[in-house]
């Protein structure tokens, strides 16, 4: 049985990309609105450039992990990691990809090949319900702070309309979550991401 009352977001990326801040913003929005939230992270050696996976579940569940077909949206902070997460994508899943590659050392040193980003997007498109893509770094630069591409991705997630929060509610949550001096760039980044996916 599909639990229609739960939105499950699976964020995949590389250590240091700021998935934790995104889950904190959603956490604070959840408190304000009374939406149950569970966030589970695997970040054992994240700071050393390893893979980071975050599962965020909003709604009526107590399980930090989800069944593959229950994942509402996969947010790839990095294209190769989005591709690697293909196993969690079914025909019901929506995918949002940041198209800025971060090349693992195995590509430069061990002769592995980094997959072509356009092919990655095409392949993800064959598997999923809908694929959105954007360059987080371009939008972040436009927002005036290269480090806000994580919140750009949150904006793109919010723009799809699948979150149980309005744009204003998330705007408020960003303001109470990020450091004061970074609020302006984060809000701008959020809006730029939002505009990519909003209908």
């Amino acid at each position, binding site marked *: *049985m*599909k*639990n229609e009352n739960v939105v499950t977001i699976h964020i995949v990326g*590389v*250590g240091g990309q700021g998935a934790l801040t995104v*889950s*904190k913003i959603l*956490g*604070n929005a*959840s*408190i304000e609105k009374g939406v*149950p*939230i*569970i*966030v*589970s*992270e*695997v*970040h*054992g*050696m*994240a*700071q*050393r*450039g*390893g*893979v980071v996976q975050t599962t965020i579940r909003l709604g009526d*569940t*107590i*399980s*930090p*992990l*989800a*069944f*593959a*077909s*229950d994942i509402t949206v996969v947010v790839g902070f990095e294209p*190769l*990691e989005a*591709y*690697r997460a*293909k*196993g969690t994508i*079914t025909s019901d899943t929506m995918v949002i990809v940041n198209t800025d590659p971060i*090349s*693992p*050392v*195995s*590509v*430069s*040193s*061990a002769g*592995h*090949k*980094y*997959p072509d980003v356009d092919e990655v997007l095409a392949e993800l498109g064959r598997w999923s319900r809908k694929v959105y893509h954007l360059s987080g770094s371009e939008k972040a630069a436009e927002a005036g702070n*290269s480090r806000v591409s994580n919140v750009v991705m949150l904006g793109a997630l919010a723009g799809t309309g699948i979150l149980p929060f309005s744009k204003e509610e998330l705007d408020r949550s960003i303001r*109470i*979550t990020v450091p004061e001096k970074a609020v302006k760039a984060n809000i701008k980044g959020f809006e730029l991401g939002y505009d990519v996916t909003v209908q």
Partner: protein
Amino acid sequence: MAFKSVIEKGPSKVYIMANEAIARAALESDVKVYTTYPGSPTVEILSTFEKVLGHLDLKMELSVNEKVALETAAGASMVGMRSFVSMKSVGVNVASDALYVLAYTGIRGGCVLLLADDPHAHSSQSEQDGRWFGYTAYLPMFDPSSPQEAFDMVKEAYEISERWKTLVLVRTTTRINHQSGVVEIGEMKRTPYEKLSWDENRTSYNAVGGTAREGKKRLLKKIEEMTVLSNSTPLNRIEYFDGGKVHPGEPPDGVEVELGVITAGVPYNYTIEGLRKLGLKARILKVGMINPFPMDMVKEFLEPLKKVMVVEELSPYLENFVRSAALDANPSIEVMGKGFGPFSEYSEYNIPMLVEALSTASGIPMPMDYEGHKKKMEGLASILPIRPPGFCAGCPHRGTFTALKRAIGKTPIFFSNDIGCYTMLVLPPHSWSDSQLCMGASFGVAAGVNLAAREKVVVAIGDSTLFHAGIPGIVNAIHNNHDLTMVVLHNSVTAMTGQQTHPAHEKTVGGVDGKAIDIEGLLRALGVGKIVNVNSFQIRENVKQMKEALEYKGVSAIISHGECALYHFRNLRRAGARPVPYYVDKDMCKAPYNCIKDFLCPAISIDVDGKSYISPDVCVGCGECAQMCGFGAIKSTATLVGGENKAYYTKEDYDEYLNARNEHEKEVEE
């Protein structure tokens, strides 16, 4: 922000990580002494306490190892203060010598040990099941399944600790520690930190021979009394799942429920999700206090059932109790535990495993072709480039091991590795380590290899690990005339776990002055015959010096000095300085990839033109790679604007560089 939630007055509902909730619970319990040795997945408990230090009245120590951490917490408790100690699964092995005796002696002030297991060994050397510590040491133990329960159980642990004068264990797993959610916290009521009088409260905390036997008798009586509690506490509870929702207590009269599930920890959450996926009814016994085990409660639960599923990760801890209870209460019951469907003692459980097991048990089909899906996933994994963790840009270890490999050359060696960032040498694409067991094991293993193998033994050990458990192994090697060369990676901090200070640092936790222990002086005093000090970043110069140490017969040491990059550049940035990146002069690059092969810096890759490329966003200007290039093609970007070819600049230098760089860029554009 989460930290505000940890120190706010409360009561309130806050969004925090379980590790923060655990720290909050200890603080609400008026803990006065907190000790720890860093280890994943418990580090956020440590960092939360560290941040609290300036706000609340308590003492915190980063102990030299977990054994000392537990003993320190126990000492404070003997005097009458409440204390708290946290450590990772394998840390308890180190502390266990004290742990087993503390059970006998008992304590006075509430004393709680949080131990965090790591099924799947995300960041540990084994999947050790810490639940057996509670059982074999006769200590009460809790096993929470959510951040809220972790919070509640730590608070309850203090009540039990003082009521029975016993150390209490709270056991978590990685999936609990790193889970965030909404937690209802209580009111922060703290009393001032004031030293107490030992003399007025003198009690005997000894155990040997007759006193040990007396202690054991007291211990068994405590466990008997606590078993009554375990059979009645609401932390062990019966629930009914009606196919969609959980209800407390037994199913309503007239409702037939065939399946029973006994579970604890995070597998409880997976069980509920699995039942909901299949719309299956079940009676559930959720065990929160796992030692002493609620045997009577389990017997009563088993009586009306035809089959019971036991859902737990790692060893069959609950299952052994359940099978033994079934012999009395319901011998014909079918117990579905380890070996049933996908259930095994290997790794973590997950939702698909639960759905599959419940589907097999109930005959309700899986909601999707999961096997087919899994096959696709496995096929996919084999074709994608891997992303193993590796040394950071600017890491001193990269320089140390590059020089060491050159110094060793083709001579066959046994490389005895230890625990720290350098443990990653075992991973591809390095794949360079012959043995690595646990903290400090490199020296003991080296001694045995010395006895058995003809080859030279080289040991690698970090500064923090050397203090933690390395010293006895060094003493042993020197006394027994072993022949080995140790490389001490002196990077100033416990790097892997988040750059905490350690005994060779001039600061203790919270920025307080401490006495820095001189590693070279220590090794000299122990009798290390040959010691060379090198700067980790000077690869070429170091090769010769390292060779001298390697050629020495007896115990020699190479102390490689270079601060952890994460620590170093964080401090630099805070001081207002910025690193100046290096770049590849494309006209000079002949693309032999010496800066890439075996060097593996995350800042360097192969450009579209086939030549090397340094990402200015990732490079921190350590300059190690420039020494790898035989053509002099790698230079500091400072040289583009007439600056020196050096590693980084201070605030003043940096401003000067930046102005020159801006000018230069304008000129290039024109």
